């Protein structure tokens, strides 16, 4: 009896769970999960933004107000922030680890055929991060009262901002980079989560393409319309 008990004990000691929460695969898992959550957020954001195209500010402001105050949304907002933080933190952490894994590079370059955008996820991601900061300054911090502005009329704020050409340039560049990031990230997240299927994986890949084009294009359409036609 004693020996079988000992056996179980060793198994438990060799594989304590906590060690695995911080394995590279677990980090990737967290990143992918957070990333997929962020993917859900973007269409919602886009739908609300489409209201900016209306000639009256009320629908947009009402929606913005709802998003800012409704309790359930509040909770989701916290989750969203955590997701962003996890995604960014582990993204950078793993990237640094990955760089360390190859201290000496190749003189002849690395010409392996890869999914093209996958090579630049860290850079597209970083640019989006800058964009995010800008976004916060313009809107979120106003809502928090950290930056002066009109928290009750983001419609106006948006319309004013998009009158500035420089803003549009920055936004458009960021939308393109967002698209590139999504191109790879969408299907990559599925593989990282271990979700792979003979039929469904190709479907996911097509959806990823459509999503990566449609979402940034939608945002770009709004900013261009506000800039050129309003």
């Amino acid at each position: 009896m004693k020996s079988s008990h000992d056996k179980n004990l060793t198994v438990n000691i060799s594989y304590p769970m906590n060690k695995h929460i911080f394995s590279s695969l677990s980090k990737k898992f967290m990143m992918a999960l957070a990333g997929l959550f962020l993917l859900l957020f973007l269409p919602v954001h886009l739908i609300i933004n489409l209201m900016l195209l209306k000639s009256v500010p009320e629908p947009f402001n009402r929606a913005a107000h709802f998003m800012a105050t409704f309790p359930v949304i509040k909770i989701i907002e916290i989750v969203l922030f955590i997701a962003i933080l996890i995604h960014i933190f582990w993204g950078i952490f793993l990237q640094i680890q990955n760089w360390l894994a190859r201290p000496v590079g190749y003189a002849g370059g690395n010409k392996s055929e890869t999914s093209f955008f996958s090579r630049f996820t860290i850079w597209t991601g970083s640019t989006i991060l800058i964009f995010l900061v800008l976004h916060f300054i313009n809107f979120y911090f106003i809502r928090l009262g950290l930056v002066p502005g009109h928290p009750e009329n983001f419609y106006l704020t948006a319309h004013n901002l998009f009158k500035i050409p420089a803003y549009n340039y920055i936004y458009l560049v960021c939308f393109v980079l967002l698209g590139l990031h999504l191109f790879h990230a969408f299907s990559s997240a599925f593989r990282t989560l271990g979700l792979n299927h003979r039929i469904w994986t190709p479907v996911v890949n097509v959806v990823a393409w459509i999503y990566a084009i449609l979402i940034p294009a939608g945002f770009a359409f709004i900013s261009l319309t506000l800039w050129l036609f309003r």
Partner: protein
Amino acid sequence: MKLTLKIWRQKNAKVKGTFVTYKMDDVAPEMSFLEMLDALNKKLVEEDKDPVAFDHDCREGICGSCGMYINGHPHGPVPAVTTCHLSMRYFKEGETIWIEPWRAKPFPVIKDLIVDRSAFDKIQIAGGFISINAGAAPEANSILAQKKKSDEAFDSSICIGCGACVAACKNASAMLFISAKISQFALLPQGRVEAKERVRAMVEKMDELGFGSCSNTGACEAECPKQIKLTNIARLNREYYKAY
């Protein structure tokens, strides 16, 4: 064929290395890449110079010993071949060829083009096996396995452990290598019994050795001389989360 070779020369792990240029005047297109290097080495030895050190053994693409990074690709620019099977007819007259060792922290250079790949063995030692003693096996046909799954297991198990996946990956990740072994056992009924312990142990060892993580770029799949598929990595991930 005339060729210019730029070969990484490094006397040992302790000293710095550098690229040395060699001119080859009479390379025959039927030569394999290693035979071309044999010719260079013959010349060097006859001049009492240190020949270029590289690992090689079976020279028929199955032992996994050979491996060098040629013109930006592990095992050279031709897909699905090992360096020993890479024919010189794929190179152009007058071409300059860059020849480098695998570059990865867990694969330190030993000499010239030889790297230390014992990290791969360490990962396999951590859990790449089915625990059964000689004599304890049941009658072979008492273990039934679906043909489709068994064939898939075979497709994963043909990895030769050459390290091209790590060399190609921008993150120097060993995920394709590990996932191939995990998949082989995960797909067979006899491998399922200790699937959890296996995947945890192998991933843990992989992390400990300093390999990068997978960002699904697909470089490994593109360069694998045995064309091991990325789907194995998805399976590894799945197996790992199941083992929580």
